[in-house]
């Protein structure tokens, strides 16, 4: 198998070296997003001084606010649960003992303890709202924030604007869309999905380079001939899937021809210590890869901590099978998050990237204040906590608070729409920006009147 290695030139039977292939310039860049970008720039619609990236860690399953970042040690035992709070390096902020490394870095992130939503208490609704700002109704699928960014700004260089690691959210019981696509913007703005496990020892992006028996000239000739063959038939112009096929081929060629893109996926270029620090598991290595993606020019990285909530140990601690027990926060899920998240913000901080990279860690809802008979907690959209760092967010602060049992926001309630507005704000996308909806109906990125959490940035 051919190894990805941008630093070494490889000789080919046709005399062209690998580097030649990569830099032959025969694969012109025709980035679809560029024209959009220039168009927007001309209108002055985007704040270009804000070249901010976002890494969104989606905590699939829904972490319990009471066992993570909003402890209630004074509540009765059936409320406060089995874990103890610890002090952090910021006076007055306490979090669960399950996150010892986070506790040493609380000055780098803020906590929003008053998120809540009113939709049905199923995973899928929260997935939609936290990633798009809206609940899907009336047949309208709203776009993921990263896809909106992709539409408005296009890719930066050869890498896709929005990458999703390692796989899209699968079945979580509701049979509804999960808000990880471009929705009404069209599939061309869907994220590039890795579909591989970065913690796999043989990890590589499938088929990123031509096989050794195929020369660069032939790859190029094939591309031209394919365009010639396609040219004669016009009936595909009205088919969205067909147009998308062209776009995916184009993006594939762009990726292939970019040394920078291929290098970004090369996790083995990281030293072993770093890899271990993030955690040698799917989520830990995905977070490390997310950092490399941003370094290579990816604007938005979505990392799904888990793929499903069934038969997998996740944040979804109902306490009975096929879901997870509450103890997994101490044994597995807690440490996994603590290592990956903390390493990520430490690295970004050390590399002076935290100012222009927002890291958001959030689940789809919180969990019932009262521990259920199975010793777990069930779905609770009325109140939960998110962790936000970087991208202009002032660390070491807590926004909003919950009541004495973590059941409802006590002050400064925050809706998913306001949360989305906050991410748009960090990205420098004006909230009145309109997107083309179905039948040309303009749809604002967030509804009129929805405000971001201003105090996060002050």
């Amino acid at each position, binding site marked *: 198998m051919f190894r990805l290695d941008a630093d070494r030139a490889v000789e080919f039977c046709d005399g062209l070296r690998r580097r030649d292939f990569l830099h032959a310039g025969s694969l012109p860049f025709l980035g679809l997003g560029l024209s959009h970008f220039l168009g927007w720039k001309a209108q002055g619609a985007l704040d270009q001084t804000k070249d901010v990236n976002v890494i969104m860690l989606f905590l699939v399953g829904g972490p319990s606010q009471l066992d993570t970042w909003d402890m209630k040690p004074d509540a009765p035992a059936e409320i406060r649960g089995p874990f103890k709070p610890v002090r952090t390096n910021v006076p007055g902020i306490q979090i669960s003992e399950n996150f010892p490394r986070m506790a040493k870095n609380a000055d780098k992130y803020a906590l929003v303890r008053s998120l809540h939503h009113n939709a049905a208490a199923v995973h899928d609704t929260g997935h939609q709202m936290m990633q798009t700002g809206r609940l899907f109704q009336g047949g309208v699928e709203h776009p993921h924030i990263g896809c909106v960014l992709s539409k408005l700004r296009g890719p930066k260089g050869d890498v896709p604007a929005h990458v999703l690691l390692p796989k899209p959210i699968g*079945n979580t019981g509701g049979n509804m869309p999960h808000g990880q696509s471009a929705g009404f913007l069209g599939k061309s703005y869907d994220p590039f999905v890795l579909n591989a496990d970065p913690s796999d020892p043989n990890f590589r*992006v499938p088929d990123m380079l031509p096989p050794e028996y195929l020369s660069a000239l032939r790859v190029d000739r094939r591309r031209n001939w394919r365009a010639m*063959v396609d040219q004669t038939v016009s009936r595909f112009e009205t088919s969205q899937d067909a147009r998308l096929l062209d776009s995916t081929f184009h993006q594939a060629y762009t990726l292939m021809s970019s040394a920078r893109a291929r290098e970004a996926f090369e996790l083995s270029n990281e030293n072993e210590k770093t890899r271990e620090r993030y955690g040698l598991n799917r989520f830990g290595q995905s977070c490390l890869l997310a950092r490399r993606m941003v370094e290579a020019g990816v604007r938005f990285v979505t990392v799904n901590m888990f793929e499903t909530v069934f038969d997998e140990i996740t944040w979804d601690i109902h306490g009975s099978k096929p879901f997870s027990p509450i103890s997994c926060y101490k044994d597995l899920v807690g440490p996994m998050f603590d290592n990956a998240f903390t390493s990520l913000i430490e690295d970004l901080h050390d590399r002076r990237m935290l100012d222009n990279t927002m890291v958001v860690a959030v689940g789809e809802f919180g969990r019932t204040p009262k521990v259920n008979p199975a010793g777990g907690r069930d779905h609770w959209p*009325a109140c939960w906590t998110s962790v936000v760092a970087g991208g202009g967010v002032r660390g070491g602060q807590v926004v909003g608070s919950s009541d004495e049992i973590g059941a409802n926001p006590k002050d400064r309630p925050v809706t998913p729409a306001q949360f989305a507005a906050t991410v748009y704000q960090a990205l420098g996308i004006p909230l009145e920006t309109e997107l083309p909806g179905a039948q040309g109906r303009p749809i604002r990125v967030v509804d009129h009147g929805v405000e971001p959490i201003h105090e996060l940035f002050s």
Partner: protein
Amino acid sequence: MSKALCVLWAASGVVFAATTLEVLPPTVDLRGSEDRQQLLAQAAADGHSEDWTRSAAWHSSNPAVATVNAEGVVTPVGDGSATITAKAKGQTASASVRVTESKAPFTWNFTADVVPVLTKMGCNQGACHGALAGKNGFKLTLRGYDPEVDHQTLTRQHGGRRVSLADPPASLLLRKATMQTPHGGGKRFAKDSLEYRVIAEWIAAGAAAPADEDPRVESLEVFPATAILQPGAEQQLVVRARYADGRLRDISRWVKFASSDEGVATVDDAGKVKMTGHGEAAITLWYASKVFYARLSVPFPFEADPKVYSQFPRRNYIDGLAVAKWQALNLRPSPLASDAAFLRRAFLDAAGILPTAEEVEEFLADSSPDKRAKLIDQLLEREEFVDYWSYKWSDLLLVSSRKLRPNAMWSFYHWIRDSVKENKPWDRFARDIFTAQGNTREMGALNYFVLHKDPVELSENVTQAWLGQKLTCARCHNHPLEKWTQTQYYQFANLFSRVGMKNGAVAGDTVVYAKATGDINHPRLLRPLPPTPLDGEPFDLDSPEDRRAHFAAWLTSPDNPYFARALVNRVWGNFMGRGLTEPIDDVRATNPASNEELFAALAADFAHPKEGVPFDVKRLIRTIMNSSVYQLSADANATNQHDTQYYSKYNVKRLPGEVILDAMSQVTGVPSRFGGYAVGTRAMQLPDVRVASPFLSAFGRPDRIICDAGERSSEPSITQALHAINGDTLNRKLNDPNGYAALALKLGMSDARIVEHLYLAAFSRYPTEAERTKVVGELRNARPASGTAEAQRDTRQKALEDMMWALLTSKEFLFNQ
């Protein structure tokens, strides 16, 4: 009117019909002093309707019996009959009203009046007190599904403060909802509202509990049920509940409204619709766990010659019903597809294969007028047809080696394949599964139970696979969006609690039998419920008979509303690229079809055919394929470019991954190799989806873990493009020493002949002159001017491989059109 406009109208054949006005509903029975009826003054002109209710002058012939206000709302005064007349723009129409029991003592009823108020005001929705845990210690049943429990909660819990019989206005229920006392849910209604009065008067009258003789809602009706409106028009909807005793009552005020497509129509809380775009939208109505909808449309702004519709070739009933929809929406159908396009499409859709170059030439040369019908008959008898549909039903029944040992998987697969081969009617196919007993080696269908050992899991698969219903939500609580309750869920699941299994003689062999005992408990009631199919008759808990037989009889009854529709939609979607409802495996009542008349006709023809055997799948396929609608061109005209759901053109669709792989094997002459399977096994012949294949993984094949049409994805992705460009699958087929390129050169075929043959094999058509010139020219240019014969041949072969790659990754190849 200008002359030009007249000419235009004459040409487009629109005839000025006289405007007519009618009052809806035409007859009204008001019972008791609190009954009301919203009337509509509905005008019809020029093929569309208009709501004149607000502009009409309303008049009652007998105000001593009933009065009518300016908005068209009728109020009873005294017993007797009256005629209510609406006058507008010179038109007059009327409705007759009969009033009874107007002086009889009246009290509001908890089930019929109070619960609907709580539901409409959102008190018992999932986010508020309808949540599983309630809100602030106050928990109502979700959307009021259990009035008895709600009555208890309101009158007995919380020290009786929620409902105060002594001082009704002091009831917390009223004080909170009107925000006289702080309420987390905000103000739900005002003190001077009807909502307030209903609850206050019910409390004042003693807060009576629900009783067995309470009115029970049987169904809903809506006015107008269908209407063609103008862009931007507003239309009030009126909804009546039909009760078990036959009474009809206007309950519009308490209905939850929602639009299926807000790009076409929006609806407010009061049921007033505004048409915001073109096309058809369904307005869903939810009241007391009953679901219904109105279908409102705005024709597209195109002109259409009526001849387009009257002269459209009608081969069977499908065509007439599709034409009616196009005509209503001003969509002009595309012309019939060419023979070549039809041939390729029919092979791919019915059997998942491409015709060979020879088959193409033969079909194109055939001049008999019925050659398409003959081809369809031949295709339906091919072994590849059997492979294709066996694969499809294996997707449905989740055949895979994940939970089954190889021998078990094969016996399951063979049972499916044998059933397809003999064209076993769909009801028998299902019945065989649910009534079989014995060992899984001899009766492969029994592996269905081995895959789903848990009765709860089994019942979810059953509803999804055979009924097109998603029931999962109701496992833990009432379905928040549908009518299914947790009680119904466990009644249903208990049908499968007596499926016994023990190990057979050899590994992988299981004996399935009906146990005499065993139940599963409702998790909250902690007792078993009588096994009951969805909306079906309960089965005695103590009966010793096999519960599955009871279920099978219900499932396959021609009167089961879901069984036929679930299958028809899957088959229709296979051919037409889009189900009549989408997703394709979702035929629940709240998911309106894009052409309900057509869907109903297909389902009726499938379940109750005028002649022949019911549930004949092959006959259904033949009917669809022979329709003109199926045989339309994929080329759009000015009116139907964006149409995907009314079938006015053939929906271009990407081929399934397995079909693409087999087609690549066929054109290159190099079969795929699947580990553990004989060389020459096609992807469509695999009984298992766990066979390693990077190509199939990239191009999307279902995992067969859960029954969900969404498991099979055909969305293009960068991953697929990368695999097509760089992956070993196609590249190895192209440069195989025994592949097409090598062979064609060995046979000494000319470039021109090769190009023609490749176009026939890959695209099922001859190349055009322009294509011939270009492609042959490129191949010629790629030839080296000098070099040894061997080097020349090598260069030529590489060029040919590259040209084949271009053909086999082109849109024309990857898409069915």
